[in-house]
């Protein structure tokens, strides 16, 4: 059991998503940067789909009631365990009754903390991912009690720890500005000028960005006709009639009425998820 002493800005429990229910309008949900979430699990020799904690801007303060192995990946976060700094991308052994302070995120947007054996939470429609309107709670609050699978003995991962200490795990470089895309279903319907603008302009991540979608800002003028409501998915780039670009993310609705001008690959969705407000990006065809 983990007790939450303070919630952080927006801390949620996420696995890789809620599949099979999109025909009922249920969003996929799941970790924003799936590569980092999977990495945290794999470092702990967990199944890749086990639920992890996802943290935004500033993480929570948590109290571990039992000893366990944890691993932090994704955006760079200042983490301490009873005052000692906790390295990222490595298995870390927490003793019973130690306190974790997951502080500010200094580089990137979403950090992940996996626990050996996996974090447990209410399973709804085959997934533990927090989701508005689907799970009873949508984020971790102060005093929430987070359950995780049974305590692991310290020896379990000790050899692994040394292995990772040798430092061969790749870290978190989210600095690239190029986002690889394919044509969206309505790309060809855009004017040639708009097509060109889309692929040459440097856009910035707007502050109106969340798990549903990232809005993009730029000085350029774009516009696209609305469409008959059609399927959308994470990575779909919508263009509204007034030219607003929205990159749909993991909590996106399942259908939408704006032109779908570009489509990010799953990898690009992971990449863009780590972009913070004001960061520039450019779209390029794969």
């Amino acid at each position, binding site marked *: 059991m983990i007790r939450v002493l303070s919630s952080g800005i927006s801390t949620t429990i996420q696995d890789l998503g809620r*599949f*099979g*229910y*999109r*025909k*009922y*309008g*249920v*969003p996929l949900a799941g970790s924003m940067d799936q590569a980092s979430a999977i990495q945290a699990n794999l470092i702990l020799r967990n199944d890749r789909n086990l639920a992890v904690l996802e943290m935004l801007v500033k993480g929570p303060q948590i109290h571990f009631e039992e000893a366990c192995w944890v691993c932090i990946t994704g955006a760079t976060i200042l983490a301490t365990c009873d005052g000692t700094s906790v390295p990222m991308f490595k298995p870390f052994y927490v003793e019973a009754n130690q306190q974790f302070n997951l502080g500010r995120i200094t580089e990137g947007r979403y950090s992940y903390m996996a626990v050996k054996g996996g974090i447990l939470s209410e399973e*709804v*429609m085959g997934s533990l991912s927090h989701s508005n*309107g*689907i*799970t009873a709670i949508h984020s971790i609050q102060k005093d929430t009690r987070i359950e995780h699978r049974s305590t692991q003995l310290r020896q379990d991962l000790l050899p692994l720890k040394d292995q990772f200490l040798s430092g061969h795990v790749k870290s978190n470089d989210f600095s690239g500005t190029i986002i690889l895309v*394919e*044509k*969206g*279903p309505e790309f060809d319907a855009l004017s040639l000028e708009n097509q060109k603008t889309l692929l040459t302009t440097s856009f910035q991540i707007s502050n109106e960005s969340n798990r549903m979608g990232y809005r993009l800002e730029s000085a350029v003028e774009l516009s696209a006709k609305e*469409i*008959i*409501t*059609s*399927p959308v*998915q*994470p*990575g*779909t780039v919508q263009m509204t009639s007034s030219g607003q670009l929205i990159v749909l993310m993991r909590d996106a*609705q*399942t*259908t*939408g009425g704006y032109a779908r001008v570009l*489509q*990010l*690959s*799953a*990898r690009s969705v992971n990449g863009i998820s780590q972009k913070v407000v004001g960061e520039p990006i450019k779209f390029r065809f794969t």
Partner: protein
Amino acid sequence: MDKGLHNVNINCDLGEGLENDSDLMPYLHSCNIACGGHYGDAESMHASVKLALRFNVKVGAHPSFPDRENFGRKSMEISLDELKSSIRKQINDFDVVCKSLSVKMHHIKLHGALYNVAAKDEAVAQMVVYVLEDFPEVKLYAPHNSALARCAESKLEVCYEAFIDRFYEDDLSLVHRSKSNAVIESPKDSWAQLNAMLKTNSVTSIHGITIPIQADTFCVHGDNEYALSILNFIDQQLSVLSPMTQPYGDSGVLLSWPKEIRPEIYNIVRSADSLIQNVLKNEIIETVITYQSLVVYLKLGVDRSEVLNTIRGLDLTAVDNQKSESFQWEIPVCYASKFGSDLNELSKEINLTEKEIIALHSSKAYGVYFIGFLPGFLYLGGLPKEIHHPRKAIPSLTVPSGAVGIGGEQTGIYPMESPGGWNIIGQTPVKLFNVEASPPISIQAGDKVLFIPIDEETYYQIALEVAENQYSLTKTKLI
């Protein structure tokens, strides 16, 4: 994405001095460009290749008897050697133009009389293949079972060609242009010929005999006065029958039908959905349908281009008559002003009394097209025209759970509290979406929904029953 008409590979003879080339381009997969034999020079080839490039249409050389006077349409007294060097020059000239524009020559198709001669005359066919062997990456368009195709098969990649706008003789040669019934001018008849070739691999000759035919690519003549209307008509027919298919995300494949909200189209989408789910059940995670599209989400590691090929090979035209069981649901709605917060404003804007709006809204059952936008949000079709109304310019920050609204030509129910731009005219006390139920919503795509007006007292009575899990919706089976 495969280009051309809905994956039907259509080619056209262009660059022959006519003005409609750019109108035809959007319908084509490839075009055959006159390269100096019957028409054209470096300049015209350059213009045509550039135009094709703009429309992403593949280009091929269209060599002919060197006979501009007769537009290459008469068989010519010419020695085999002379003809060989002329064809070689025509192809080379075309290749030079392609290279100058960094475009690949995709294919070669003979023109007019030469096409017909090489289809029958072994010597001419062998000579043509001999010339083409210098271009090993270039495909050859030739009629199936023709002398030319037979000679080429072991040496070149051959695309079998058939004609959409020419009548056939019993031996699969084209009715000679000197006859009055050589060219098909009616879009309807052209479509009938193409449709038969696609569906049954056969064509009906002018003598009414059904003859088997194989074709990978289909030709419409650019100089057929009706080429554009033929292509346009074929486009319309094909789009209802066969969807556009394209990759959509790493693990998605999208099928799109004509951009219309129409029961006929929607029924085809639903049938396609159940067929694809059946055929690809091991590859699919889930599918989502909307009015005129279907997205197929694939399991990790499934190759989407393989799935695209499988789907393109399916006959998605047959509407499934054995529909799954469907129901009509009665949903109680209170239209009192405390629930229908926009009813008063709407009444002024569309010039109907509130009573009239309520009567119209509850007058008929609406078809459930699909669920999207929010968990359990039903997209309903069939709203009476009189009460169509655009979404609000500024969406409300909170629309309560159960709110019934009008957005454009649709009506719907908010399954949970959410921001929303629809005009709210009432509210249902019933909870349509329940995460603990399986499926989470009982109303399914293909069902119908009828709104039953209730007063405030009944609203609270039902709300109480809902809270105590004592309420269930009235439903009747649809035949």
